[in-house]
């Protein structure tokens, strides 16, 4: 309202200020217990607002519209919520399933897809209205949903070990099913070019890659037997695979049931090394320049961060930000990183060169941190 009056006054003069607020350095932090989102300003290292009323946000994630104004939030309770970052309000909210795990937005920004545990499958919604566009039941808990070029989504089936590609570029979705990915895929990633899809397996001692430029793609085992002859440790939290895995020319991937990260050449998909870590890795995320990889860990080691140098594959820095480090998000060019420290009720901002803590921001049980620059990245 005030803006409208200001605009009206401004229009009476020759000098017309630009009143639109830019969103390029904003972001959202999931407050998992209270069902709210903090709106944050990455340049100011500050919170600038809060959006409430989003339901059960444990394990919530979100994606951004191409104009970086709207976010689509995927809640564990099956809620899909569209929020307006500028107005700091909910635009629309639908309960689309009983139990969901993640989502993606198509390359053209027209479709938002959600992967569900219950009922198992993927549902696709109109990004403008949140009307249901396509229902793709899979008969399985469905995980590892990503967007790839060509208005396609790729996702995997926990119960049957398949990966499906849903092409939404035509009038009706075209589904390609790829069997034989392996037992119990728990998460997956796609490279920033949308070419290589890698599924992590809980039930097999390897990962599986697909070259999405092949037609049809055939499953290619990678890191076969990485834990062979070693005792599998209890897995207190499934690792996450994200499109931030590319460090230099290699992927860095969390091992399941082992205290290590695994390195794989991005072209040949052959193993190039292993780095022993403090605990079982949850996220292994490359700084945007790829020179360092930051790793956090599963309970009971989730108070610690290790930083690994990509050149030497050695841990170069280790510190304990606090209890329950759940997520890390780099600024788009990587000069700073934001960490959510759940049980401290803080988001902590660090310089990624000096490792100096720059700021603490109060938040209620923070988990995922998402900067708007993700809007322009495939697979995030």
């Amino acid at each position, binding site marked *: 309202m005030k803006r409208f009056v200001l605009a009206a006054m401004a229009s009476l003069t020759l000098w017309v200020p630009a009143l639109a607020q830019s969103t390029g350095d904003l972001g959202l932090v999931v407050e*998992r*217990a209270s069902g709210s989102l903090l709106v944050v300003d990455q340049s100011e290292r500050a919170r600038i607002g809060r959006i409430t009323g989003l339901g*059960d946000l*444990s*394990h919530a994630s979100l994606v951004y519209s191409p104009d970086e104004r709207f976010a689509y939030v995927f809640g*564990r*309770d099956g809620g899909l919520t569209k929020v307006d970052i500028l107005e700091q309000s909910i635009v629309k909210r639908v309960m689309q399933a009983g*139990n969901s*795990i993640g989502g993606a937005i198509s390359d053209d920004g027209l479709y938002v897809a959600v992967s569900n*545990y*219950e009922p198992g499958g993927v549902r696709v919604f109109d990004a403008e209205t949140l009307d249901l566009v396509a229902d793709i039941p899979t008969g399985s*808990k469905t995980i590892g949903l990503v967007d790839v070029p060509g208005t396609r989504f790729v996702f995997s089936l*926990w119960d049957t070990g398949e990966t499906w590609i849903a092409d939404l570029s035509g009038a009706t979705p075209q589904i390609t099913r790829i069997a034989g990915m392996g037992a*119990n895929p*728990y998460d997956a990633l796609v490279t920033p070019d949308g070419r290589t899809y890698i599924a992590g397996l*809980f039930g097999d001692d390897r990962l599986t890659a697909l070259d999405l430029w092949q037609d049809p793609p055939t499953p290619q085992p990678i890191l076969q037997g990485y834990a062979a002859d070693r005792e599998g440790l*209890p*897995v*207190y*939290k*499934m690792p996450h695979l994200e499109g931030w895995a590319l460090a230099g020319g290699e992927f860095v991937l969390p091992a399941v049931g082992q205290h290590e990260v695994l390195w794989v050449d991005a072209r040949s998909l052959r193993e190039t090394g292993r780095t022993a870590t403090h605990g079982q890795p949850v996220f292994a995320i490359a700084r945007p320049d790829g020179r360092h990889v930051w790793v956090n860990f599963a*309970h*009971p080691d989730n108070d610690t961060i290790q930083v690994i140098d990509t050149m030497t594959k050695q841990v170069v820095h280790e510190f304990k930000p606090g209890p*329950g480090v759940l997520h890390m998000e780099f600024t788009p060019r990587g000069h700073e990183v934001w960490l959510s420290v*759940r*049980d401290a009720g803080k988001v902590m901002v660090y310089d990624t060169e000096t490792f100096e803590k720059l700021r603490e921001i109060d938040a209620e049980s923070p988990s995922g941190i998402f900067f708007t620059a993700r809007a322009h990245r495939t697979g995030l």
Partner: protein
Amino acid sequence: MQSTRRSRLVNRVLFYLAMSGAAAAGETAAVDAPALERLVRQDCGSCHGLTLKGGLGPDIRPDALAHYDADTLSAVILDGVPGTPMPPWRPLLTQPEVDWIVTYLLNGDTR
């Protein structure tokens, strides 16, 4: 429904008996209840959901667990379920802590 309600009532009575028994025996210091509740919500919750209604793992709210006895649940927590993602918590939890968690799960949030 009736049997569920009755078993919840029984569980609740057992819960108070257990609590008073523990207090009488001077064992309340053995477990850190707020820390265990946080563990259930946050760490069990990473698979079973923050509200325990299920996720990768099944629903573990009181109604869903009503037909299990406490010993079975205790064994599942301590030793996990082989062939599934349910891990053994024996390396991290003591028997009194597991007992507290089992009672908590069977009764729900009684505060």
